[in-house]
């Protein structure tokens, strides 16, 4: 299990775990298609995280991105 802060940019990753106890963050991530089993591509980390899930692109701050763990 790897944090998004350590993975290679541009490679497809499979989400395995969402580590947040905030319901609204969890709900929002799920609505954006980010949940265990879905695959994502990290595009950049600075100034904000940008990830792509399917055809959807999402911007996240470091704190929110830190709750996403990939294989």
């Amino acid at each position, binding site marked *: 299990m790897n944090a998004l802060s350590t993975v290679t940019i541009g490679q497809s990753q499979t989400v395995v775990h*969402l580590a947040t106890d905030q319901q609204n963050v969890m709900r929002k991530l799920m609505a954006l298609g980010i949940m265990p089993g879905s695959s994502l591509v990290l595009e950049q980390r600075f100034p904000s995280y940008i990830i792509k899930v399917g055809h959807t692109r999402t911007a996240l701050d470091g704190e929110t991105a830190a709750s996403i763990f990939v294989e």
Partner: protein
Amino acid sequence: MTSQVLYQEPIEEAIASLETWIDNHRQSNLFREYTFSSRSLALLLLQKDPSLWSALKQDEEQCREVEIVLTVAQNKLEYPVNLAIAQTRQQQARRLESIVLQETKRTQTSLTETLHRFTVNPLTGFPLLVVILYFGVYKFVGEFGAGELVDRIEGFYEGQINPIVNQITAQIIPWQSLQDLIANDYGIITLGIRYAVAIVLPVVATYFLMFSLLEDSGYLPRMSLMLDRLFKSMGLSGRAVIPMVLGLGCDTMATMVTRTLETKRERVIATFLLSLAVPCAAQWGVILGLLAQKPAALMVWGGLITAIFLAVGYITAKLLPGSSGGFYMEVPPLRLPKLRNILTKTWIRMKWYFWEILPLFIWASVFIWIGRLTGLFEMIIRGIEPLVAAIGMPPETAPVFLYGFFRRDYGAAGLFDIQQQGLLTGNQLVVAAIVLTLFLPCIAQLQMMIKERGLKTTIAMVLFIVPFAFLTGYCVNLGLTLLGVNL
């Protein structure tokens, strides 16, 4: 093709038992306002829908029955129930997509993709942000909207409409004091409506035009993600970029837009910063004109206001309990905006905003009328004079601060007149510009603050802002004098 989504076994079991339970309770108050199927209601209950659950919690017995079903299902599942539901839906959506969508492999990255990278890469994105703010906000809204257009419309209003109104009022109403309510220098038609039409409308029109353009092109989320880090240090998130940039157009409108921020804490910080350190287009337009001949003075003003904005934001974020809301935002593809959509959107927003703000300006006229009639203004000006003297200004500038409250740029414009008479030195101009920028938000903004944040919060903010503005002016004046700087 309407295939029902089939969830995992434990969830389907829970849905089935909740459906029976709901059918038995259909007549109760709980479900009276919900008209959709029992299956949908069961799914909402399983996903802990906040409004449905808050209604459910009124009856402990009912609540326990549902919770048992939920726990049973949860114990059989690997993931939380709502996550499992979302996963199944996601899979279904993917399956549908794979059936109907055929993707051809692109050999090269498309233009929109290249453009997207350009907007979010720190090396190119930040310069682009500066360019957009410079041309979009500074040049178009500030110089064209708040400068050129305001001058023309106001010139027309003052030259063509005011004399007629004054003349008619003088003929119909015999009492001078009542005439002043409608016409003359501070009347409802000659001042209140004139401000709304001649000052606010051009600023807002150019602003909304630019804003709709950025909105429809898909640039706004990119702007938010570029500035999120900076805003985080002030207890705000990237989402607050929109009200803050709006504030450079019209702070009253921006205060209203702070509604869209996620947490109460963010809304309070944003409202506070808007009223303290974000000058509106009408205001900074005049201040730029005032200091245009003295680049050093302009630098001192701009630098200090920016520093205060960042420092006060940082300190407020440290002092206010709670943490800044997380930032997550979908980034839509960049698109070429359609002119028709932009014009329609701008027009609808202008109409809505105009009717929202018109009463505030009419009230401003009424307040001025009462203040002058009762001698209250004279008293306040006498009260401000020692403060004005303390920051090193001649007493003639005292009314400027009071009237600046009724219209932000009026204060600066009053200063302009005094400067024309050669009464102010460079140092005094800078000090006055700084105090005016920090000083009370205009009366329309103040009314909006009360409406959005409540009376108590607004009073607390004002009690900080007024002494802070004068104290800053005092320190700047003292500092410039001690350093022997003459701007």
